[in-house]
């Protein structure tokens, strides 16, 4: 029989064992907690990137050019990582946000014009997010005149209520909807070897005799340049740099925790591009091969998901799009008004009362409601808004990168953490490439405007 003593002794031994296990895992737990405390901004910043404008641009480029745009993904991943890493490094080693540094080193006027540009371009991005909402709701049979105002009010309230952080996590969780594209891409049974082959530049591959028959070489014309600029603009957005650096500062990442942050940025950049790869392959093998070359509404875009969801494809697409749009819409206006107010010296922050930070709240409210209003007013040009908001990002990006590059190479700010020479090369080459691309787009669109004024 079990005596009371033996039971108690057993219980005690058990408690001791639990305690020893606890003691053993404590150091690990602390290390993991530290890692989790630092990780996040890089992942969030790259994932918010696959927003409405992003999904549209990827779908559009996949439909129009098939595999022939895939080669741009590898250089873009490198450019994304390089440019984001510089900002996170600046955040960790100076402890100041990007807009603060621009203000302190370049003065008020430069900062003002940069902020005006950021505001304008980000308003375009917010409009793109609301266009995403409007597409998603129409696909679900809800009028945009109901869905867009509700979305605007929802986003506004969530952030002002201070629940944004929690909601952010929910959105991040729903990002798994992107895997629908991954699965759909597999179900569409594309020729994977050919798709992977196109990760290398087809312009060069066509000269390799054995590969030549499989290579689709894109014709480099104005439309192609716009798509490329849009792709660059949507994956490497100016606002990301401000957001990431501010988040690194806010998370109090110091030199010691920096390596974790760098990994976070690296994982974020690569995971973002992997998703892009699958979206493009998916749309290429469902739309492009069938001769649907233009994605002009949610219905067409949803066809890409048919291999997975069949007749529920458009619903799945709508849910994914809605999530992506709301996720970005809850982050963009806030981070924009924060960055602008910080740089220009206005009181900012959600923890301040309305009376203390009037300009901050006014700006935040204006971005959301003006964005929503413009989308409703310009509903006919929805796809133009989506593409051009991304192209505008591409216009602003070189300017931001030049500031970043000047600042990150300043010894008095960064000490021995200035860029290495190789890093500088990669960064400058991507910047120059983006400037060239932007100039081509600007030239061709102005040219088109005069040659075919009707289009």
């Amino acid at each position, binding site marked *: 029989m079990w005596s009371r003593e033996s039971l108690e002794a057993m219980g005690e031994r058990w408690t001791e064992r639990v305690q020893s296990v606890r003691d053993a895992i404590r150091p690990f737990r602390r290390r993991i907690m530290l890692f989790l405390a630092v990780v996040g901004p890089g992942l969030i910043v790259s994932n918010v990137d696959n927003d409405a404008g992003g999904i549209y641009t990827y779908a559009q480029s996949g439909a129009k050019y098939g595999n022939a745009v895939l080669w741009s993904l590898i250089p873009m991943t490198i450019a994304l990582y390089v440019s984001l890493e510089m900002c996170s490094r600046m955040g960790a080693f100076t402890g100041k946000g990007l807009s603060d540094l621009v203000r302190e080193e370049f003065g*008020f006027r430069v900062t003002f014009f940069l902020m005006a540009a950021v505001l304008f371009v980000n308003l375009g991005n917010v409009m793109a997010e609301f266009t995403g909402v409007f597409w998603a709701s129409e696909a679900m049979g809800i009028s945009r005149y109901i869905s867009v105002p509700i979305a605007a009010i929802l986003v506004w309230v969530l952030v002002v209520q201070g629940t944004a952080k929690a909601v952010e996590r929910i959105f991040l969780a729903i990002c798994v909807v992107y895997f629908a594209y991954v699965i759909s891409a597999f179900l569409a049974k594309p020729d994977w070897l050919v798709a992977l082959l196109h990760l290398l530049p087809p312009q060069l591959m066509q000269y390799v005799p054995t590969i030549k028959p499989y290579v689709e070489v894109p014709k480099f014309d104005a439309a192609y340049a716009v798509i490329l600029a849009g792709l660059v603009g949507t994956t490497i957005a100016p606002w990301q740099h401000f957001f990431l650096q501010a988040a690194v500062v806010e998370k109090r990442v110091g030199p010691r925790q920096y390596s974790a942050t760098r990994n976070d940025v690296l994982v974020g950049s690569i995971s973002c591009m992997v998703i892009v790869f699958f979206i493009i392959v998916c749309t290429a093998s469902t739309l492009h091969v069938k001769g649907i070359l233009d994605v002009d509404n949610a219905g067409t875009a949803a066809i890409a998901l048919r291999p997975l969801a069949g007749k529920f494809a458009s619903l799945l697409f709508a849910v994914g799009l809605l999530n992506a749009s709301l996720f970005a819409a809850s982050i963009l206006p806030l981070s924009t008004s924060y960055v602008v107010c910080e740089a220009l*010296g206005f009181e900012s922050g959600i923890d301040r009362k309305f009376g203390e930070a009037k300009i901050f709240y006014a700006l935040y409210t204006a971005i959301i409601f003006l964005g929503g209003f413009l989308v409703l007013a310009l509903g006919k040009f929805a796809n133009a808004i989506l593409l051009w908001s991304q192209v505008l990002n591409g216009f602003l990006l070189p300017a931001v990168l030049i500031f970043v590059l000047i600042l990150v190479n300043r010894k008095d700010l960064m000490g021995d953490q200035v860029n290495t020479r190789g890093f500088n090369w990669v960064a400058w080459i991507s910047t120059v490439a983006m400037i060239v691309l932007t100039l081509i787009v600007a030239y061709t669109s102005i040219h088109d405007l005069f040659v075919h004024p009707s289009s």
Partner: protein
Amino acid sequence: MLTATELMGAKAYDAQGHYVGKVREFFVEPAEQPNRVAHFLLARGSFQPLVARHDQVATIEAGKVELSVPERALGPYQPNEGWLAVTKDLLDQQIIDTSGRKVVRVNDLDLTEQRTNGNVELRIAQVDVGLPGAVRRLLQGIAPPRMIRGLQNRLPAKTIRWEFVNLVEPDPLRRLKLRITHEKLEDLHPADLADIVEELSPAERQGIIASLDEETAAAVLAELDARLTTQIVEKLDPGKAADILEEMAPDAAADVLGELSKETSEELLEEMPGQEANEVRELLEFDPATAGGMMNTDFVFVGDKSLRDEVVEWMREQDLNLDQLDTIVLLDGGAQFSGTVSVARLLLAEPGQSLSELKMEPLLNIQPNADEKDVFELFDKYNLRMLTVVDEDGRPLGVITVDDVVSKLLK
């Protein structure tokens, strides 16, 4: 009233009316005079920049400076760490507004003219942190000056008097040369100062904490979040860090040390005086998620046989933290926990009453290895403000106060 922006780029002419150059920068020399513009840097093309001293200036107006001496009387410019450069060190930089207790960014400076025998001296009157300064910075040189003046008069002004401006300079040597002290910061409430410190960059933060007196520094560190505190303490000079930790309550010091690496925390403990270090060491033994990890060994205890008057008399002589004290622990003859008495009861008791008659009911205490959740529950259930932690023999080890619980819950 002039502003720094209006003066910047002004054309300077010497006593004969010859053009000398444009005002590129101007400096205050705090070692001589805290708010006087002492030197003007004049630059013309590729010529060597010249410096005009304050007593070489005859008149000043927006866009124009007239010197009282010929050009050859001016000296060449040599960088000087003891000069505060208005554009480089002040405009667009963050400063601490000690009257408004916050960190703000400088948009412009308002200068007043003072005439002294034939010269004009400029003094910094206030710092512009509002819209008028911003508009001026944006439009200066683009729009006509009259329009700018007209526009800025209609905007709400937001300025800080120069006496309330506290500069932030991370480099300690430069701080000394510029005569920057943080005495004004020491008068702020530690919680306000902690908010200010949080808004600054790590280097600036470090500079401020290092230059505060130990008592204030300890109070500020206790208000900061754990990660910041660790980062700051790690980078402080060990001697200074130990002095600050010594000023902190033992439980707060243990919390800080617990976050540091073993070597650093051991090094700091070595630097601390024996008794304090031992108290902290004992606390470090406890898991932060238990009652022992939350308790503070610094508490007030008296024998339960003592009379009300004796206790009050004794308390008067001790150096107690009266703002935080609200409960006293009672010990019996065997030095074991016998109960607690609230200060309010003590206050209202008859002079000759024994403390054991004033005990709070029910008698509560907790073991150091109890989980923090049990602590929270007790505080919640009995509306406690303080709970005594006792060892197996019933001897009090320390106390947990309600503020420890609140900060634990907020994490």
